[in-house]
């Protein structure tokens, strides 16, 4: 099967083949996700060398642990989970402080939050444009779910799997991030007037 033949297969099918000794197919997964991983890392670190190293480490870890991937589940949240851990470790080392709190009250108590419905897609596109401007000014815990939701198109449930937090916490963080961004935008507008 040629390169184009693999394009027809899903990430999960290719991961399953890599598990079953078709190791060269890991290159297909790398090709599919390298851009996304670089974009993800670039939202949290600015040094190009660090971004390159993190992405390499993500793929290295993904390959080493490919047999722990459950092919009945989606591949992208699994890979983003590895990337999330790598980023947290790198930021912890570099900034010598906790990037995420040990116990966040948001993860502890229930919240009544529903995922945005498809009718809100237009709003989602508009927010995405606004988000570009203020994303870097958001705290790590807000920046990550916002990026994964608006830029990478992951669902609340998938983001919850990536970050290892309840689905309702993803919702509340996105809601709060939007409020913070609205505040930042208003402030910017006021300053420009």
């Amino acid at each position, binding site marked *: 099967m040629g390169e184009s033949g693999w394009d027809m297969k899903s990430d999960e099918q290719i991961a399953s083949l*890599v*598990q079953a000794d078709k*190791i*060269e197919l*890991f*290159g297909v997964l*790398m*090709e599919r996700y*390298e851009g996304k991983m670089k974009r993800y890392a670039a939202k949290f670190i600015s040094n190009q060398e660090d971004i*390159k190293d993190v992405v*390499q480490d993500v*793929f*290295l870890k993904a*390959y*080493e*642990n*490919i*047999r*722990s991937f459950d092919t009945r589940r989606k591949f992208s949240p699994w890979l983003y989970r590895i990337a999330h851990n790598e980023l947290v470790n790198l930021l912890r080392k570099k900034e010598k402080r906790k990037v995420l709190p040990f116990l966040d009250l948001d*993860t*502890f*108590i*229930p*919240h009544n939050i529903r995922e945005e419905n498809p009718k809100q897609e237009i709003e989602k596109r508009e927010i995405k444009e606004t988000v570009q401007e203020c994303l870097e000014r958001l705290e790590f815990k807000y920046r990550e779910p916002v990026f994964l939701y608006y830029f990478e198109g992951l669902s609340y*449930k998938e983001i*919850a*799997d990536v970050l*290892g*937090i*309840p*689905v*309702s*916490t993803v919702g509340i963080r996105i809601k709060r991030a939007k409020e913070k961004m609205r505040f930042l935008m208003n402030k910017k507008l006021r300053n420009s007037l």
Partner: protein
Amino acid sequence: MIQEQEKKSEDRELLEKIKKGEVKRRPKSYFLMRSFLYALAILAVLGFSLFLGSFIFFSIRATGIFFLPILGFPGLKLFLLSFPWILIVLIVLLIILAEALLKRLHVVYSKPLLYSAIMLVVLVFFGSFIIERTHLHARLFERAREDMLPVMGPVYRGFGDRQIRDTCIGEVTAVLADGLIVETVDGREVRVITSERTSCPCGLEQIDTGDMVVIIGEEENGEISALGVNKIAGEDYWLRPPKVSPQGPGPGSYRGPGPGSYRGPRIELSSRL
């Protein structure tokens, strides 16, 4: 163009390493072993929490603290002052550790952690209560008293033999006009003087010979001016383990460590009452 070339060479580098076998996939057995050890760690923490929880129930019953809150304010105060808080702190730490371990499971982290925390507390509380009813600790306590329990022996003697001053448990041997004669679990005979001030939730007139009672009040020369007295069900005071064999100790056979045999810490509380 140059960037594109660099990207291709980075990709190729890792792929070359993969093809040459310089980077290896971890075998499935590695992940199975890791899952097994993880499950084992959770079971160990939960098992120890249940053991400790049931030990707390044991210690508060063995010392008589368990029966104090029903005796009104003095009993409640004594209960709070003599409660084994250090064990409570330990069990809270164990529950936090269990929660931290369980948090890695999809079924746990996908729901607010408050739910799993409540589940853990309920499981440990009721699990401990059930384990305590098996008399496991009473048997281990007996072995500790006979110096046949290595490692845990001093712990059992320390918490089980702990005497709470102004608290006494025993069997009524006679009912008098102004009180009771009680044979305490450590084999002494005391005269319990009751008055209008004596709190007795079950009613003094309901107490009869052969009843097990808990008494609070200061003891002086074999006489206790009771602040509170209450009947307790014989099997509730399970410090006496059930009969295990014709030679073994049976209900009612336990008579406590006896005068002078006490080795645990003594709590001075009479001045605070």
